[in-house]
């Protein structure tokens, strides 16, 4: 028997449409309405400014630990923008901009990061999962949702977000493998932000790209400039089209950067250089999109300033509403809710125990 070679795909596409200066590759420019472009701008700006505000509130002790998103707005919004209301979003924990796009309120985000269960606020008309903290674990849920979509004969999609660190988890590989085996309408969006807390992307995997991992599972893989909202949108649109028409799943690696801390409990100066951060600041997704919109005549310095003011007011109003709400602490008895469809006897007993304790405390 001779030793032969089996040919497998050994290339993946990399898509970049807007460069750092906002210059456009017009041949690749996706067809996006002006209205959607302006909406994307609004949410990119809102995502950035809200993130900055949350960080400042956290430093003042007015918000608990959270995971900032700055630098990753284009990845989140370019992908979320292709979703229909009936599609399913399965986030990790660093997708606040995508969640806001889908209708989650800023007020709920503030409540959540202040430890209020009331901050879990899934819009009634959206099938969006709550955030998932155990890294990569949610990928399989998107697989289950996508399988069910196909079973019911719908043309919806399930879109899962996760980070570069998640691609080391078994759940990621199992998820992509299942998606390949069942040819289901799933879109896997990796926010490759270069850092899993202190571990750089190059120590996460020896693979040259993350996108190439799709090849092994027989699904489409593509790498995009994740700081280029047009590129992310184009790749996600293509993936959605493939999924809705029965063409199976896609893995999109969005190359972006975590411009801020992992969470507010982290100090990145311990493990990465200022030079690196400065390099990525030049690639800021918001700046280049604003340059593009300005060149297109949709934005101007004046309009950007107006947009900044609008966003600032929206954020202030949300902070005010949330802080007003938080003048009242949550009712502790609420902890027994949503444990089961029907509260079992031992929990009824424990709830009564806590109620007695609380009323005794009130009496002093």
């Amino acid at each position: 028997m001779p030793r032969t070679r089996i040919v497998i795909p050994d290339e993946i596409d990399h898509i970049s449409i807007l460069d750092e200066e906002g210059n456009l590759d017009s041949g690749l420019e996706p067809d996006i309405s002006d209205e959607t472009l302006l909406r994307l701008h609004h949410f990119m700006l809102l995502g950035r400014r809200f993130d900055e505000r949350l960080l400042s509130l956290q430093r003042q002790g007015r918000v608990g630990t959270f995971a900032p998103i700055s630098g990753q707005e284009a990845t989140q919004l370019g992908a979320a923008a292709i979703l229909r209301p009936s599609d399913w979003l399965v986030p990790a924990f660093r997708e606040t901009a995508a969640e806001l796009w889908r209708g989650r309120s800023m007020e709920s985000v503030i409540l959540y990061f202040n430890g209020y269960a009331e901050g879990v606020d899934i819009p009634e008309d959206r099938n969006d999962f709550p955030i998932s903290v155990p890294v990569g674990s949610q990928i399989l849920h998107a697989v289950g949702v996508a399988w069910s979509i196909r079973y019911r004969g719908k043309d919806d999609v399930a879109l899962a977000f996760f980070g570069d660190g998640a691609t080391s988890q078994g759940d990621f590989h199992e998820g992509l493998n299942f998606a390949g085996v069942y040819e289901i309408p799933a879109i896997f969006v990796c926010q490759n932000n270069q850092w899993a807390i202190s571990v750089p992307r190059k120590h996460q995997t020896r693979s040259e790209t993350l996108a190439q991992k799709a090849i092994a599972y027989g699904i489409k893989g593509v790498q995009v400039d994740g700081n280029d909202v047009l590129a992310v949108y184009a790749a996600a649109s293509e993936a959605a089209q493939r999924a809705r028409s029965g063409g199976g799943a896609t893995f999109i690696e969005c190359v972006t950067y975590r411009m801020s801390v992992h969470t507010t409990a982290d100090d990145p100066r311990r493990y990465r250089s200022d030079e690196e951060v400065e390099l990525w600041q030049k690639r800021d997704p918001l700046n280049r999109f604003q340059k593009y919109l300005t060149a297109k005549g949709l934005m101007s310095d004046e309009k950007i300033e107006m947009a900044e003011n609008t966003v600032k007011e929206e954020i202030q109003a949300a902070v005010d509403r949330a802080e007003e709400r938080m003048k009242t602490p949550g009712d502790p008895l609420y902890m027994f809710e949503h444990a089961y469809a029907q509260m079992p006897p031992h929990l009824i007993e424990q709830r009564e125990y806590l109620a007695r304790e609380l009323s005794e405390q009130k009496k002093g």
Partner: protein
Amino acid sequence: MPKMTMVQSLNLALRQEMEKDDRVIVLGEDVGLDGGVFRVTDGLFQHFGAQRSVDTPLAEAAIVGMSIGMAAYGLRPVCEIQFSGFSYQAFHQIENHAARLRWRSRGRFSVPMVMRTPCSGGVRALEHHSESREAYYAHTPGLKMVIPSGPRNARALLVSAIRDPDPVIFYEPKSLYRAFREEVPEEEEAIPIGTSQIVREGSDITIISYGPMMRPTLEAASVLKEKDGIEAEVIDLLTISPLDDALFTASVRKTGRAVIVHEAPRSFGPGAEVVSKIMEKSFYYLEAPIARVAGFDVIVPLFNRENAYLPNADRILREARQVLAA
């Protein structure tokens, strides 16, 4: 003797064991250059190098699974799972292999590894960062389950865990990491796994606890003394499995009354096992029903409601007084 936080004393244990024994390897997410998210492994990377303080890719199952192989080979891996809430992503490796390899290989291979992981609540953290699930591990034959309650015993238990011939799950109550300092001797000190300690002597009632609940338990014992004139005997279990039942069953034979306190959910928790041991060994000495003060059987609420979930000195005191009144 230098005064240390639990973070520092655990670091001392790791440093000294690594110094003494080149089989001891630390591995996990962010344990190297970053020194661990709580800084327990701080400086080990700089002192011992990347070969002995190993930053891993992000995969809990791989961290534990790889540790099993290293241990079988003859090394002494001390792996860190960043929060106990993420250890379930490695649970199949723990239950199916770490706990069983000695048995499955009829003693040919063993798994002398330690899985260190920050546990329990009280630090206003996000979901999955506040649970106390020691019962999972204590319920798994083949594992040892240890939970220190302060800097000094944390150091002395970690030393024993590293030297233990079997897999040890080492829970570090994160609310105690920097809560207080204790004198910790530079020279070697070890507490044998499977031994509990009387930390306050008394003859009226026995209060049994461990880990993060030792402080509210001792606070309640002081109030009992000052306000009620009651002498409570307080026992720190230190090891959940194998459970040292000699000390607390003897204590209950003396006091006739017992309260067990833990942060873990009440049902099927370590308290249930302690109560069973008392029933088996000290039943005829009991003068009152035994009380359990524990977390409720719900997911630990987000931190706005967490204080109402966590047992505290008041709750312990109320239950103890009922037991004393019975």
